[in-house]
């Protein structure tokens, strides 16, 4: 169990340039059917830590959410073919971090239309540094063909394989360009890294991520879905409505504690020492690798 948690923590730090440390030759894709023609495709093995991909396969073709890493693209294409799908017709990026979007570099040049939030596309056009606390990851600008062709700000709809798909952006959260993708017919939502099912969230604070925005984001999605909705996290096991609900409860309580400590003038070390996450660490893992640090920074009073 603890190895899973460690792996998840690494995921949460979005493996990023960790591409170098990942052995893709040892990777494989595991598919799990969540509803007819609707699957989650999870990369594993070889220390590979890519975001969860969701695939809708049906009469109109194939739509995926998140594109993982380039070496994994042929692998999940094979998986999609084994599930009865053909070419990928659309790919949505939940956000711009490379463990969710780097596969764009294969799909885009192959002519697959890419869809993302305005801010995610903007980030993909630039050279970025992602401060994951233990290290700083480097993500160079993507070539033009790997950039999203369709972008939006608040909402966009797709109508594909017989269902309506709502793309929703609420506020800066994990990044400044997150999208929740709600499949209305299948009754499922892909949350990207706004929600991790077994790790604390990572706020990419140096690039506009925001603790309060992440809570607001999750609440908005909870208001758009129902108790039967399948909740796919950016990383980790597929979850349910109640898991997202309890995640929000946890974040609200942790936030309150850290804000109170900051108001008392606590340093980061003092916040860590106060163990503001203690009762949830068994579920979400070590809070000191990145979570409390980024939370402390995000929750500083705005000038």
């Amino acid at each position: 169990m603890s190895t899973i948690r460690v792996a998840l923590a690494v995921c949460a730090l979005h493996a990023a340039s960790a591409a170098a440390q990942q052995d893709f030759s040892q990777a494989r894709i595991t598919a799990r059917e969540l509803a007819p023609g609707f699957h989650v495709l999870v990369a594993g093995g070889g220390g590979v830590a890519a975001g969860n991909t969701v695939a809708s396969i049906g009469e109109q073709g194939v739509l995926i959410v998140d594109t993982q890493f380039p070496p994994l693209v042929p692998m999940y294409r094979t998986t999609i073919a084994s599930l009865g799908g053909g070419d990928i017709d659309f790919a949505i990026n939940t956000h711009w971090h490379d463990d969710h979007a780097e596969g764009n570099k294969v799909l885009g040049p192959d002519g697959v239309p890419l869809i993302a939030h305005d801010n995610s596309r903007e980030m993909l056009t630039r050279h970025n540094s992602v401060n994951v606390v233990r290290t700083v990851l480097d993500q160079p600008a993507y070539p033009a063909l790997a950039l999203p062709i369709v972008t939006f700000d608040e909402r966009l709809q797709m109508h594909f394989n017989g269902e309506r798909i709502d793309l929703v952006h609420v506020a800066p959260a994990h990044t400044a360009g997150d999208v929740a993708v709600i499949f209305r017919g299948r009754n499922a939502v892909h949350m990207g890294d706004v929600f991790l099912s077994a790790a604390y969230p990572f706020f990419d604070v140096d690039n506009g991520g925001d603790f309060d925005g992440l809570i607001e984001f999750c609440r908005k999605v909870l208001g758009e879905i129902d108790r039967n909705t399948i909740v796919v996290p950016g990383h980790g096991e597929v979850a349910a409505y109640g898991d997202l609900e309890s995640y929000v409860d946890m974040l609200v309580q942790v936030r309150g504690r850290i804000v109170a400590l900051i108001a008392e003038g606590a340093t980061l070390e003092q916040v860590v020492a106060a163990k503001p996450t203690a009762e949830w660490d068994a579920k979400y893992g070590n809070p000191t690798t990145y979570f409390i640090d980024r939370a402390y920074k995000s929750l500083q009073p705005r000038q």
Partner: protein
Amino acid sequence: MRLASLLAASLALSASPALAQLQNLDEQLRTTPIRPEKLADNFYVLFGVGGNIVTSIGEDGVLFVDDQFQQMAPKYKAALGELGGGRVDFVINTHWHFDHSDGNQVLGPEGTRIVAQENSRQMMTKNNVIDLVSQKRDQPAYPAPALPVITYDSDMRMHFNGERIDLFHFGPAHTTGDSAVIFRSHHVVHLGDVYNNAGYPFVDAGNGGSLSGVIEFCQRVLSEIDESYVVVPGHGPIARYQDLVDYVAMLTTIRDRVAALIASGATLDQVIAAQPTSEWDEKKGNPTNFLNRSYLSLSRP
């Protein structure tokens, strides 16, 4: 087919004073060629039968704004080939009326991705009646492959052939699902039938269109562009920024006159008799149908 043609002709007609020429839509569809007018390298307006098409051709492929009638599809595909384009990758429908989106029924099944405002897609999923005053035109629901796959509410963007393309919806206007499509590098906007440059506009008041909405929609577009922009109307010749300014001024004057008449208790016949459009009729044609729809639109609470 014959009735449909007649009715179709009369919708096109609301956009054109050349009524007599439009008596036979089938004949038109058979004989009218696609006439490209170049706005820039790899960027054209395609005139044919139905709404004006704008096309961008480049390294990302081909994008269309509007796709006219099914019968025109072989012709514009051929024209596209001569202009160096291949298959149509994307079509944006400025709205759901058949003379702008009937071609979806050819392009959609071929794999072209169709984009529209959400309300336009909803209209395309239903059987509709378009009340053109002179006649009522049926527009049956489109089959699934002809429907937009991507829709938006107020705005979205495309990034295609090296430029940003802004899609805006500013509320009910010609229909409840109009889009303005702004090509930011080419400085071109396609306004669909919110801007008619071939006569008075048709406000589809029977399906939620609004004369005041047309005015506001145009004003919002004017605030998004500047005097360097080329303005492509849904029908009629290519125009400039100032033409759109003049159009808004005309519609505002007429709207205020008609609204005042309605407030004083005037019937439709009395509004028509008052000739609130007289100084533009020579240029824009017979205002009777326009006034009919304006009256309905402005009579609403």
